Structures are given as C-alpha cells and as structure tokens.
C-alpha cells in the first residue's frame, strides 16, 4: 500500500534491513530487552546471548585480536572501508550491513 523510508528505519535501528521488518521475537529483543539493533541483526535475541556476545568481544580484544567485521561499530567499519580503498560518498546513508559486505568483497578480491 505504501513505500516506506526504509533507509531511515534501518539507520535508526527500527527495521532489520531494507524491506525487512523485525519479526515478533526481534521486536521483543529490541524494545523489551533493549538489545542493540546490530546485535539483533546478528541473531542475538536473548539477554543471555547478548551477555555472552559481549564477553566474547571482550575476550577477543583482551587477546589483542581484531573483532570480526560484524561486531565492529559503524565508525570503525568506515575507517576499515577507507583502509581497504572503498570510498563512501555519504557515510550517514550507508548501513553497517552494506559496509561489512563491501569490505568482505574487497578483501577477497
């Protein structure tokens, strides 16, 4: 019936991806449990899993290793993209999922 401003919803963490809404479990995770959108996009929908994910990230950092792309923050992804030679014209409009995909593809080339 209508075309929604998906770009805005995705950037605000109010939709899973362009054209994809959060399902019921994901909505609960987002708004009842307060799990960040990026984590829910990676399939984390319980508080326990979110805690485990945070601990996992801390362990990786403590070992001095690099976090997987999916766990990086957007500004870290933008820096990484620049590092591998991807030019971003409008960082505000770029989603984390797009950045992860582009960096992965570029690295594999």
């Amino acid at each position, binding site marked *: *019936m*209508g*075309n*929604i*401003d*998906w770009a*805005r*919803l995705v950037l*605000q963490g*109010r*939709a899973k991806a362009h054209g994809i*809404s*959060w399902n019921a479990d994901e*909505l*609960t995770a*987002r*708004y009842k449990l307060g799990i960040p959108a990026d984590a829910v996009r990676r399939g984390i929908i319980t508080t326990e899993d979110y805690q485990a994910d945070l601990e996992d990230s801390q362990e990786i950092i403590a070992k001095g290793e690099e976090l997987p792309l999916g766990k990086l923050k957007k500004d870290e992804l933008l820096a990484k993209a620049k590092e591998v030679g991807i030019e971003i014209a409008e960082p505000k409009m770029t989603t984390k999922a797009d950045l992860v995909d582009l960096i992965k593809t570029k690295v594999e080339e």
Partner: protein
Amino acid sequence: MIATTDFASLTDDLESIYNEVTKTKLAKMIGPTFFNVSDTDRKTHEHLILHGATGIEDVSEGQDFPRITTEQGDTITWTQRHFGAIVPVTKDMRKFDLHNQIRTVVQSITSDSWDKLEQDYADTFLYGWADSFTNVYGKSVASLGPDGVCLFSASHTTPLNSDNFNNLITGNPVLSRAAIVATRKAGLVHKDPNGQIRPIILDTLVVSPSNEDLAYRTVQSELISGSANNDINPLKGKLKIVVWPYLETRSDGTDTSAYWFMLSSGKVKESLHSLFAERPSLDAPEVVYSNKDWDYSIDYYYTNGIGFPAYVFGSNGSGS
C-alpha cells in the same frame, strides 16, 4: 434492435443504472467512515506524520511567547493504482433488444467495483498482522505502516525516541468485556512521542456479523451479563457498535469472523487513508459501430495507506 442512433439514450439509461447501484452501495459502505477518503492529483503522494506540537510555557510579564515545536515523524509514499473493467453491450444484446441482460451486466459490474473497494478497506484491517498480502484484485501489496511494522503491533515506534506504543489488543483475545475494558484504558493512557499524555478515546467497536450478538450483549446491556443484578455495565453508552459484514471473511477466503477492532471515531482518519485520483465512473465508448460490441467501461484510480496507527486497535481473536 438498439441501433447506433439509440446510443445516446442507451448511455443515459446505463448511467442511470450505474448511479442507482452506486447510491445504494455507497449508503451501505462502512469502510469510508473509517478511512480519510480524499482526492489527489498526484500519482505518488508523500504523507508526513507530524507529532503533537508542544511549547506552551509559563510566560512572565513582558516575555515573548515561546515558539512551538512540531516533531517530524515518519514518512510514507502511496502510489495510485488503476482499476477497471469493460462493461460490454454485445451485438446480440442490441440486435435482440436484451434490455434485461444489459441492465444486469451494468448492475453486476458496478456492484463488483464497490464490493471490491469495501473488501479492500476491510482487508486493511484483516491483514493488519501481516507484512504483505494479496489484495482483492489479486495483486501482492505491502501492508506495513510508516514505522516499518504491521498495522497492529505491540511495538510501534517513532523517530523521536525509543518508547514504543501498542495498538495490538494485548494477547489477541476473543471479544470479551474484560478485553474491551483493558483496551479502552490502554487508549486513555496513551502518551505521544513527546511524552505528553494524549488520551485516545476508543469509542467504536467494530465486529463481524458473527460477533454482533455478543458485542451488543457485552456493551449495551444495562447490567453485566452473568454478574449480580446490582452490578451495572459501565460500558453502556460509551461505545458505538459497528457490524461490518466484510470482516466475516478475508479476500483470500480465510474465516476472520473472530477479528474485532476498537477505534477512535474522531481520530481514526489519521491512521487510515484512501486517496482517489479518480473516483469510479461509467464511461461510454468514444466510437460505436453498428456491427460490433459497444464497450462501456468502469474505472478508477486509488490507493489505501496507513498513517499514524495509534487510533485503531485490533485483535484477531487467536488468543496468542
């Protein structure tokens, strides 16, 4: 025999039939009382939600009045779609003066256009739990609101803050007094995205014919059914009941008789929109030949859309 010289008078007759059926149908349609039905010249219409203006402050003597702020909400665009059908007056009909058949064809197709419109309005409610659906015209359409969730959701959001609001009747209960009371309360304590209490007075109960009896007994009884005789029914007089035959079955044939809805009659048109670039009409063919069918046509352009969904609540009666 209806000859080409009779074309003008036949057209007048068909338009009379069309107008007569349309008048009868429109008088019975319920959808347009819930939707903001309006006209547009644009193929694509952008709808912007503005949340309640705030800014009234305690003003000291000599102080300038503060400027109010209006919060911009989500946007959604609705694109017109074209619907139509040929109303054929065949050569046989004309040659053998089959006036009854001609009348029936015009009546049937006119009814079909209004019935489909009404079912499309009802389907907006009935598919309020789905991301998309196949509409009454057989086309797949998205059914999400501007915030990217279904019409009826426990987690509607706005761009302004992370607070969300609920217009899903909690637990999708079957129609009951307790559920009506709880939903009325949910509306009355509604807060706008600025955090201001903006009561939504849910004054209309919309049910299918299957729930008509229960709805009237629950809402209109003087006393609460099944309770002690001195227990009054506080719902009496607070809710108007609308029995909508098109809620009984969805356009895909699913039995939706248990679905029920509550809405604010004063505000629901902010939630549901129906924009016509062209209202239904019967048009005569531009050229007619004595040896061919005369193709009259009925067509219209419109689109339905969901705006700010807070003013209509729904339950599919599934209990989950």
